């Protein structure tokens, strides 16, 4: 029988061979349940472990990971070899720092059984089938319970148990010459925050709006990003506010700290301390306490996001954004990069219907494809609207097809912000944003 080498023992051993070392360990249990074509397809049980070792030797950074906890020799050798050639660290690992606990664990998620998850999925599938038996429905549900440990040679010792419940639903309606997919996903660390039935009702409302299709003329016009559509605008800002792009000089915001470069109604918070939010934690993956801070306040750039390394490069303070996974994936085997926690856009004063009511014509964008394509660094977006509705004076006229939107976030959020709606809503479990109405967005249609 091969034995697992304890984390503390491994760290103690490596501490004699370098100046600083950090061991990140994760043990997880997850249970993904999948429905295809409206019926149960598979249930999976995942038990995973992983370790990542970072060392600083002669000022140079080394890194290695493994899933074989019985083999500490290879892990240590690999990390030390990497440090021999590695880049200069330019930072020091943090010591133990107090940080009030952020709630990340919900026993109700841990206790969810596979049968309960299956029942949740069956109910959602049945409701969609009763709305339209022709819909092709795919549902995935998963619980995850993980324990993260982070130890370093400066006495840092973090141990946090985290849960999450995630649900994704796709409903496709396939007709000759018109295939459409309406989808939604949500994730939270707490069971009661995720309601598959509420997601289904929203999908059904969108399907209803989609019954009629309509066309728009190619032109610049008001576009309302709502609420999941907000990711189109926030994605370029994630690049622009990332300390890495700031330190490398590729962010258009790199020298704009303290300057008003967005419309004064626009405030964007990065919040790592929201209890039970999917991207919340007490510490980031390097042991820096997470924080809640305005990145953009009343249109003024207030703060960039840094991990230890980039903070060291520009002489800034780490902001608790050193995470191994971002909005689009990652995991223990990645080095800590810079990633947002929950991004919150401050709500405005008028209701969405009041905003739409004043616009003779507006395109409501809920879902796009092609996120991240194009010149994101420069703030450009260019997306196919996969779910969007034309509204005239607040009335939904119908769904648009074969339509692209394009523009520059830095320009539009400075010069063309019409309004933010009065209610911020969750999108994908990682963003809380009101509807964002912008004028002057390019809309190209082949219709």
């Amino acid at each position, binding site marked *: 029988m091969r034995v697992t080498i304890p984390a503390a023992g491994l760290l103690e051993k490596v501490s004699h061979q370098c100046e600083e070392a950090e061991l990140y360990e994760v043990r997880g249990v997850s249970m993904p349940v999948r429905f295809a074509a409206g019926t149960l397809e598979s249930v999976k049980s995942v038990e995973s472990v992983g370790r990542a070792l970072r060392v600083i030797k002669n000022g140079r950074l080394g*890194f290695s990971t493994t899933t074989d906890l019985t083999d500490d020799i290879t892990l240590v050798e690999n990390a030390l070899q990497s440090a021999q050639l590695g880049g200069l660290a330019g930072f020091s690992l943090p010591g133990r720092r107090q940080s009030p606990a952020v709630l990340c664990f919900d026993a109700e998620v841990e206790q969810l059984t596979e049968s309960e998850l299956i029942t949740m999925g069956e109910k959602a599938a049945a409701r969609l089938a009763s709305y339209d038996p022709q819909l092709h429905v795919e549902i995935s549900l998963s619980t995850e319970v993980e324990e993260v440990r982070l130890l370093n040679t400066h006495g840092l010792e973090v141990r946090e148990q985290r849960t999450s419940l995630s649900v994704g639903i796709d409903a496709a309606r*396939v007709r000759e010459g018109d295939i459409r997919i309406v989808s939604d996903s949500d994730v939270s660390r707490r069971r009661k925050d995720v309601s598959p039935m509420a997601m289904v009702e929203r999908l059904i409302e969108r399907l209803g709006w989609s019954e009629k299709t309509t066309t728009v003329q190619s032109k610049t016009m008001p576009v309302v990003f709502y609420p999941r559509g907000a990711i189109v605008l926030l994605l370029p800002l994630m690049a622009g506010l990332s300390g890495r792009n700031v330190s490398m000089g590729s962010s258009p915001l790199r020298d704009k700290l303290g300057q008003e470069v967005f419309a004064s109604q626009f405030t964007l918070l990065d919040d790592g301390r929201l209890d039970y939010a999917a991207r919340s934690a007490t510490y980031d993956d390097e042991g820096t306490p997470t924080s809640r801070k305005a990145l953009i306040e009343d249109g003024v750039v207030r703060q960039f996001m840094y991990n230890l390394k980039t903070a060291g490069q520009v002489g800034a303070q780490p902001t608790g954004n050193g995470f191994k996974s971002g909005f689009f994936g990652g995991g223990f085997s990645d*080095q800590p990069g810079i990633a947002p926690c929950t991004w919150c856009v401050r709500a405005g004063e008028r209701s969405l219907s009041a905003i739409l009511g004043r616009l003779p014509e507006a395109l409501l964008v809920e879902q796009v494809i092609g996120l991240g394509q194009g010149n994101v660094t*420069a703030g450009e977006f260019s997306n196919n609207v996969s779910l969007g509705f034309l509204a005239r004076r607040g009335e939904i006229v119908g769904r648009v097809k074969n339509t692209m939107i394009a523009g520059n976030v830095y320009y539009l959020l400075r010069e063309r912000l019409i309004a933010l709606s009065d209610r911020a809503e969750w999108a994908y479990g990682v963003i809380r944003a009101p509807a964002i109405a912008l004028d002057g967005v390019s809309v190209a249609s082949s219709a």
Partner: protein
Amino acid sequence: MRDRLLQTLSHCGADYADIRVEREWRNAVLYRKDNLENLESSSEVGGIVRCLVSGGWGVAVFNSLEELERRVEDACRIAKTVGAKISQRAELAAVKPVQDEVRAALLKDPRCVPLQDKQRLLQTYNERMLGFSDQIVTTQARYADSFREITFASSQDAYIVEERPDVTLLLSATARNGDTNIQEAFESEGWAAGFEAVEGQEELAQRAAQRAVELLQARPVSGGVYTVILDPLLTGVFIHEAFGHLCEADFISKNPRLQEILTPGRRFGVPELNVIDDGYLPGLRGNSKYDDEGTPRKKVYLIRKGVLHGFLHSRETAARLGATPSGNARAVSYQFQPIVRMRNTYVDQGSATFEQMLKGVERGIYACNAFGGQTEMEQFTFSAAYAYEIVNGKLGGMLRDVVLTGNVFETLQSIDLIGSDLQIKGGAGGCGKAGQSPLPVSMGGPHVRIRNLTVGGRVE
């Protein structure tokens, strides 16, 4: 190992069961600007069991091989729960159980090449880009190799050990002129090969840096409808993203309405149009002798002579549609069950020359390579990495921000010319589907010309 796996599976009580155990050795080098951001050797071990009971799948993933027997029991127990509740029972089409051992033949096994050699090579490429011009503000030089040994065993007595090498190189340069004109260009390559494949690629670094600088002078495209010529790389991305994914039979096989649209025999394009997915092309990333269900690879025509011909299958989708498994059940790692995926997908060559394609185009776009692409059923979108305008049959100035979009069925019908200059290659990324990313694939084609394609962008 062999006896342990086969014995455990044969006693587990499932109607069918298989197991994959994977060992991976990987190395990575990443330069950003003048920083060596990552230099890493890592290893991974893990496994996955699939059990089928009464048509329901139970799956268990694990890292500790000590737990193997217990995890087989877990998968079996879960499969029973699923089997009792399921309404559409999964069945598996027959495949002859294979016993085989497939070793990779590499000139330079990346496990034996010192990490320092990899770091130095990447440093050279990175410096080449950084030194190209003062306008280059940042770069990314990324190298990754992975060597996987996959052991597959099934309750039907298949036992395969296969080595799968993969090596990738991404060189990207960002140029800036003034505050807001920031342009990025990249070259991206990937092979099922050893370290030798990434050596001697200085030219790629040069091209990436040069193009980033050139893009500073490029005009943003005006949105509208154009005749578009795709270069071989973009043809590949188009056919993979927009059409290949539709031909993955997992979605079709459970969707009768889609089957009405995708009916074999139906005409999808000009007679010269052939679309192929092929697992046999030596050195390409989509290669492997067997898929992750132990089915040997095939060459599959998706479109033959303009007519829909076949789909890509796993054993399960083949059983449902009465077809033959095509060796396309692939998993990105031991953490996932195999699903229907492409391998090396391309438009076969036709007969047109580039000059013939330009001829008669009053106002068009020559679009090259792709920054990315995405599809949602019939809707697709992808962004060209760079492009040129075509005015009265002649290539003109460089364009940027060219994003192509449309309906795949209409677009295939609108391909009127197919070039004779077939190129297939793997990029540094890979394909993503159902949370499994990046799966090594290659794609390609010749130049093709498409009439009436919508191009997103600023509207004047």
